[in-house]
């Protein structure tokens, strides 16, 4: 929304031209300016400048929803959660790890964070009848701890009925895409490029293991 182009906002033509001439092409450019400066750019009085700001703001503002509509959309999309298959944890989390939110897993070394992430990655690939999200997973592995052998082992032991079937192990683990950025800038760049990929390929889970390693590199 911040990068919405001023040229597409249907402002009065002379105002749009003046803004373009000064290089103010996006909503972000216009809204970051103080009123007084906008008045001098547009060469108009304060009322016209305010009207222009109100117009740009209305277009750049994301649409609103009532909380009820939000609740209904969450309930419609399944429970909106990824069940962890640990009953106690799922109870306290209200069903599982919530979708559309950031969840942080913290703990001392050796406690099982990576193992937990591997299990979650596997769960997300499973069909919905088995409690999964039936989607792809992007696993950002900064410490080179991802072990595909371990994931298959987890799959075979926890969901023997699926993994015993021919080719299903390949299908499920084929849905996990592992990325190994070598630096923070590498990571940020790949995140930017990932936005389209996430939508196109139905990615349901993004795991970063771990943030600390990225920061210290």
């Amino acid at each position, binding site marked *: 929304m911040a990068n919405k182009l001023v040229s597409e906002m249907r402002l009065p033509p002379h105002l749009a031209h003046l803004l373009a001439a000064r290089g103010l092409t996006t909503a*972000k450019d216009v*809204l970051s300016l103080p009123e007084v400066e906008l008045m001098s750019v547009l060469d108009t009085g304060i009322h016209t400048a305010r009207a222009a700001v109100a117009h740009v703001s209305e277009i750049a503002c*994301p649409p*609103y929803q009532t909380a009820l509509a939000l609740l209904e959309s969450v309930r419609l999309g399944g429970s909106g959660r990824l069940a962890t298959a640990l009953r106690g944890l799922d109870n306290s989390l209200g069903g599982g790890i919530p979708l559309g939110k950031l969840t942080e897993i913290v703990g001392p070394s050796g406690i099982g964070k990576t193992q937990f992430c591997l299990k979650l990655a596997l769960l997300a690939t499973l069909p919905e009848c088995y409690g999964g999200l039936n989607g792809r997973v992007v696993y950002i592995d900064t410490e080179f701890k991802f072990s595909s052998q371990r994931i298959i082992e987890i799959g075979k032991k926890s969901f023997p009925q699926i993994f015993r079937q021919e080719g299903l192990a390949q299908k499920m683990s084929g849905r996990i895409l592992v990325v190994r950025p070598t630096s923070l800038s590498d990571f940020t760049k790949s995140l930017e490029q990932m936005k389209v990929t996430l939508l196109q390929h139905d990615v349901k889970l993004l795991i970063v293991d771990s943030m600390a390693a990225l920061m210290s590199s």
Partner: protein
Amino acid sequence: MEIADLPICTSHRAKLLAAGYSSLAALSAADPPRLALDLNIEIPEAEDILKIAVCANKFKGADGPSSVIKGAQNAWDMLSDEQSRKHINTGSGDLNNILGGGIHCKEVTEIGGVPGIGKTQLGIQLAINVQIPVECGGLGGKSVYIDTEGSFMVERVYQIAEGCISDILEYFPHYQNKAPSGQEKLKPESFLADIYYFRICSYTEQIAVINYLEKFLGEHKDVRIVIIDSVTFHFRQDFDDMALRTRVLSGLSLKLMKLAKTYNLAVVLLNQVTTKFTEGSFQLTLALGDSWSHSCTNRLILYWDGNLRYAYLDKSPSLPAVSAPYAVTGKGVRDAVSSNRKRARVM
């Protein structure tokens, strides 16, 4: 009374009309040097004319204070206005007490604290409590919740709405019986339907939504509270230019204050904490800097004392700086329960 009726000499009257002062209103907006220049007379004469005009206005019975300074209101009138203002119940009786009844309408209140202390919980509680019906001591209004961090968990909002309804029915059992239509009204879904939710993902969108609120509030006149959770988030990362940040933030705070006054609503801004190096040690302080700290009318700081949550009224134009304990329960924000006293009434 018109210019023609003013007890001034004919030549002055003619000059006033010639200079374009056709009404008393136009004259009262003028100042002596300007008038003297326009009429081509001496300044003392201009002052006399203005004095006569002011007296004529008073005689007519126009607004006393407004004729002295345009747009002024005297403190006595404001007192009755202030006393009649309603407060929004925070859910905790102790917290309401230190706030002088609850969150004030027509004022901007900032609430800050460490992560996990309950800022979002309090924000959601206020978004629900503003909807408590007028018959039960509430405002019966709607709320706008601007979420910049994604911490608005709608299932929790449902839970808090259920808690609020059960408390209303506990203290107003006759509410259910008196209004059979109240049966339909007091459902969590209807509370959720009256919260307008905006999800903001950048500082540009934050500026845009605050600008858009003017139009939105004009169309939805029953909104009584606007909560921004949190006002800090997008301003801590994107800015290399600190001067721009200060300018944008002060612009936002002015607009929010104006919205609070114009539409008679409460504005609640949730803020994060940061560490500041003062007097040789690192201390926790609210984010966004010193100039932002002037922007709000009231400030509440939430902190931990051992295992208990406390709220400290750090800034207020009329109330002393006091602390009060509160708790976050399954039903929402409530009084902290101490083992040797019965839980105080919530409403």
